[in-house]
C-alpha cells in the first residue's frame, strides 16, 4: 500500500477527537510531523511500565489494549492510543499490541512540542477539546 500523502494524512487526522477543533491548515501542520508506521500482528507498539514518547492514530487494523495480560479494548480505525503521552512523561499503564496488520500515524512528543511552540492556536484548540472532555466527565 502506498504511503499516505499530506492531504490523506489530514483527512485521517480530521477523524481524531483530540484534534477535532483544529482547522485544515492546522491539521496540515500536525500531518507534516506525523510518520506512517506499520506493525505486524503481535508486535508490541508500547508496553505498560515503560516510557512512551508518541501518540498513535490507527489508520488500518486493530490494536489490542491490555493490562496484566487482560485485553481491555481494541482500538480501531481513527482511534488514538497514547494520547496522554503527549502531555505526560509518566510510564504507560497499559500495553498496546497489533492484533493484526496495523498501520498507524505516529506523532512524537518532541516534534509535537516544537509544533505547538510556533502555533499557539493549535495548543489552544487541543486545550479546548481536553477541557470539553473533562467537563463532560465531571458533569456526567
Amino acid at each position, binding site marked *: 500500500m502506498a504511503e499516505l*500523502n*499530506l*492531504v490523506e494524512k489530514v483527512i485521517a487526522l480530521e477523524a481524531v477527537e483530540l484534534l477535532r477543533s483544529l482547522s485544515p491548515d492546522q491539521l496540515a501542520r500536525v500531518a507534516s510531523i506525523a510518520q506512517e508506521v506499520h506493525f505486524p500482528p503481535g508486535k508490541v507498539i508500547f508496553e505498560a511500565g515503560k516510557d512512551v514518547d508518541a501518540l498513535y492514530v490507527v489508520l488500518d487494523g486493530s490494536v489490542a489494549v491490555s493490562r496484566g495480560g487482560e485485553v481491555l479494548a481494541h482500538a480501531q480505525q481513527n482511534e488514538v492510543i497514547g494520547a496522554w503521552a503527549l502531555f505526560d512523561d509518566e510510564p504507560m499503564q497499559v500495553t498496546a499490541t497489533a492484533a493484526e496488520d496495523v498501520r498507524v500515524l505516529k506523532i512524537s512528543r518532541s516534534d509535537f512540542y516544537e509544533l505547538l511552540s510556533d502555533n499557539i492556536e493549535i495548543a489552544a484548540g487541543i486545550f479546548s477539546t481536553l477541557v470539553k472532555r473533562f467537563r463532560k466527565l465531571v458533569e456526567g
Partner: protein
Amino acid sequence: MLEAACAAAGKLKNRVYLPALLGLLANWRYRGCALAALTAYGVRIAGTLGDILQDDTAPPSLRRQIPRVLRSIREQRSVDVLLASIGDRDVSVRAAVLRALNRLREDAPHLEFGPQFVTPQILAEAKHYCQLHAALAPLAHDGAHRAVRLLRRTLEERSQQTVERLFRLLGLRYPPQDIYAVYRSVVRQSPEDLAAAVEFLEGVLDRPLRRVVVPILEPAANVAEKAKELFGIEYPSPAEALRELVRSKDPWLVACAIAAAGEAGLSALVPEIREIQRTAGAEVGAVARTALAALAEEEGRAWRN
C-alpha cells in the same frame, strides 16, 4: 544559564548581542527571555526588527515573533514598522502584525495608526474575501468527495480569518471596542445581531469602506453580485475554481485543490498538476503524484468502457 545571559544582554543593550537574541526567538524554550531582552533594548532596535519582519527569506516562525517584541515597545516607530508589513504576503505574518497593532492601539491610543496604510489594506482584504467566496461557491454542493470537503473547509476557514483581519484593520481606524463588539456579532451570525452590526457600520464607516465592507456581511447571493460589481470577480465553474487554486502560491490550497481534482476526475487539470509535480516541494509533489495516478486510472476505465 541562557536565561541569565538574555537578561544581562537586555540590561547592557549592546547591539553585538542582537543576532544571538534574535536566534533564540526561534527556540521555544528560550523565546520568553529573548522577547523580554529584545523589548528592553527599546525603540533603538525597531528598524532592525522591521528589516527581519520584511525579509521574506527569513523563516516565518521567526518573523511571526517580531511583532510580539514591537507591541511591547509603545512608540510611534513600532507602529510605523508594523504598518509597513500590514500587507505581507504570508497571512500568518499579516495576522501577527495586526494583533500587535491592535494591542498597541489599546495600550497607547495616542499613537498614529496611519489611515493611508490601513484603508487600502481593508479594501485588499475585502477583495480577498470576495475571491475566496467565488472559489468556494462552485464547490458548495459536492459532498461526495473527501478532498473537496477538505478544500471547502479550508476556504471557509480562510474566509473567517479574512473577516477577522478586516475587523482588526477597522479597529485601527474606528473605536476598537465598538468594532470588536460588531465583530463578535458577525461571528455569532444571529440575524438580529447581524442587522445591528450592519446598521452600526453603515453609520460609522466612511463611504468607500462602507461600500465594500457592508456587503461582506450580507447573504451569499448578494456577496456574489457585489463581488462582480465592486471587483469584477466572475464566479467560475468547479474546474475553473480548482485551476485557479492550483495556480495559487499557497502550498496547502494547492495540495487540497490537486487532491480534489484527482478525486473528482477532472482530467482537464492534468497539465497544471504535472507542472506542480515537477516544481513543488516533496509534500505537495506527493499529492500531485497520487492525483495523476487517480486521473490516469479514471481515463483507463473510461477507455475500457
